[in-house]
C-alpha cells in the first residue's frame, strides 16, 4: 500500500470513521462562557468556556487544587457562600443566566448536589428525603410518601431501606447513606445533579453501586461529576474535561481523553506522570 493511501487513511479515519467521534451530540444544558473566578486576589479559574450536554455524564478531572470543585460549585452558586469570591463571565442553564437571576433557591432546586462524604441530617431516612419537599410546602402525607418511595427507588436504595424508613439515617452504611443523599437530591426534582467526588469515601462495592446508579440517573438528569478516580471517570462519563491550574486544558469525548488525548499535559496526567 502506498504512502499516499496511508495519509488518506489517516485523515478519513481520524476525522470521520473513528467510533470516538461518532457521538450523538445532545442539546446543551449548561453553557459556560469565559468564566473567571477569584478568591480575593487569587484567581482560581481562568477563561473557562464549556458546553455541558443534557442527560449525559460529564466528568471533571485534574490534580488537587486545579479548580474542578470550584468550577462545579459555580454551577449552583455555592461559591456565593464564600467571602471575597468574585466571578466574571456567563453561565447559562437552559439559556438563562444563573448569575443574573436572583432566585438562588430555585436554582439549587434545579441543580442538586451530592458531596464527597454523605451529609445526611440526624433524622430518619424518611425525614431526610422528605425534608426538601416539605420545605417547598408539600404537606400531604400521601404525596410525601409517594415522593420518598419514588426518590429512594430512583437512587436504587428502596429495597434496602423500605422496612426501616423511620429509623435514623445515620445507622446506614456509608454507601447506603450516599445513595440516600442522592435520593434526597432527586426528591427535589432537579434537572442537573452535581457530584463532588461522590464515592471517594466508599468501599469498592458501594462505589460500583453508586456508579450503576449514575448510569441509570443520566436517562433523566444531566450529571456533572468531579472525580479523582480516573477509571471511574472512564466508566461513568460521556465527556471529560481535564483541568489544570484553573484552566480547562482539554474537553472531549471520554474515550478520546483516556485512549488518545490531544494535549501532552492530559496524556501525562491520565498516565500518572504527574498529579
Amino acid at each position, binding site marked *: *500500500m*502506498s504512502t499516499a493511501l496511508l495519509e488518506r487513511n489517516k485523515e478519513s479515519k*481520524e476525522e470521520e470513521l473513528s467510533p470516538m467521534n461518532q457521538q450523538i451530540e445532545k442539546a446543551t444544558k449548561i453553557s459556560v462562557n469565559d468564566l473567571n473566578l477569584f478568591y480575593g486576589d487569587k484567581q482560581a479559574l481562568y477563561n473557562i468556556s464549556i458546553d455541558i450536554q443534557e442527560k449525559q455524564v460529564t466528568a471533571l478531572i485534574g490534580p488537587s487544587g486545579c479548580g474542578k470543585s470550584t468550577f462545579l460549585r459555580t454551577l449552583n452558586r455555592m461559591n456565593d457562600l464564600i467571602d471575597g469570591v468574585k466571578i466574571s463571565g456567563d453561565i447559562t442553564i437552559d439559556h438563562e443566566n444563573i448569575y443574573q437571576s436572583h432566585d438562588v433557591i430555585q436554582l439549587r432546586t434545579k441543580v442538586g448536589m451530592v458531596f464527597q462524604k454523605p451529609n445526611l441530617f440526624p433524622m430518619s431516612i424518611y425525614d431526610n428525603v422528605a425534608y426538601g419537599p416539605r420545605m417547598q410546602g408539600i404537606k400531604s402525607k400521601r404525596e410525601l410518601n409517594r415522593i420518598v418511595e419514588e426518590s429512594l427507588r430512583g437512587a436504587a436504595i428502596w429495597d434496602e431501606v423500605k422496612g426501616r424508613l423511620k429509623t435514623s439515617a445515620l445507622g446506614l452504611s456509608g454507601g447506603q447513606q450516599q445513595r440516600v443523599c442522592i435520593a434526597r437530591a432527586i426528591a427535589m426534582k432537579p434537572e442537573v445533579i452535581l457530584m463532588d467526588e461522590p464515592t471517594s469515601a466508599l468501599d469498592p462495592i458501594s462505589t460500583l453501586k453508586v456508579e450503576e446508579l449514575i448510569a441509570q440517573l443520566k436517562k433523566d438528569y444531566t450529571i456533572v461529576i468531579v472525580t479523582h478516580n*480516573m477509571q471511574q471517570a472512564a466508566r461513568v462519563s460521556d465527556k471529560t474535561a481535564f483541568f489544570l491550574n484553573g484552566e480547562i486544558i482539554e474537553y472531549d469525548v471520554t474515550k478520546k481523553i483516556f*485512549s488518545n488525548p490531544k494535549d501532552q499535559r492530559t496524556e501525562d496526567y491520565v498516565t*500518572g506522570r504527574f498529579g
Partner: protein
Amino acid sequence: MNARKNFDNSLQELQNKMIEMNELAISAFEKAFTAFQTQNMELALKVIEDDTVIDNLDIEINQFAVWLIAKEQPFATDLRRIIASLKITSDIERIADFAANIAKATIKIGTAHSLISLTNLEQMKEISMNMLQMAVTSFIDGNISLVREVADLDDQVDNHYAENYKRITEELKQNLEDTTQLVQLLFINRYLERTADHITNIAESAAYLIKGQIYDLNS
C-alpha cells in the same frame, strides 16, 4: 520520586521480551531459509523443534500483558503500548510458524534437484526480514516514517508473489516430474507473502501506538 518507576520498568520488560521474541523469529526464519536453500534436513528439523520456544514466549508475554492491564489499569499511550505489544507478539508468533512451515516444505522437497533458481523467493525473504526489523523498530522508536516504508515494501513482496506464482505454475504444466517440489515452492511463495502481511500488521500496531488511530495497510 518517580511514581511510575515500577510501571515503566514493567513496560520496558514487556518490550524486551517482545524484542527477544522477534530476534528468535528472525533467526528461525533465516535458519529455515538456509535449510531450504542448502537442502539441510537437520537444520530444518531444528527449526521445527525450536518453534516451541517462541510459542512459549508468546504465552508468557500474553500473560504478562494481561497482568499489567489488571494491575496498572493503563490509559492513553500506556494502554495502546500494551495492546499493540499483544497484537505484535501474536503476529511474530505466526511469522515463526511460517518459518516452521518452510522447514517442513524443505523436508518434503528432500534432496531433489533444487528449482529455487526459477523463483524470486530469496528476494522475498530478504525484503520480509528487512520489513520485520523496520516494523519492530518503528514500534520501539515511535518512528512513523518506518511504518510507511514497511507498507511500501509489502507492495514489492506482493509483486514478487504474483511473479513467482506465474513462473511456478507455468513450470508445473511442462515439468510433471517435479510436481512435488513445485507445489512446495508454491506453498513457500504463499508463506512468504503471508509473512509480509503479518509484518504489515505489526507496522499497523506501531502506527496505532504512535498515532492512536487504527490503520489498515493490507488493503
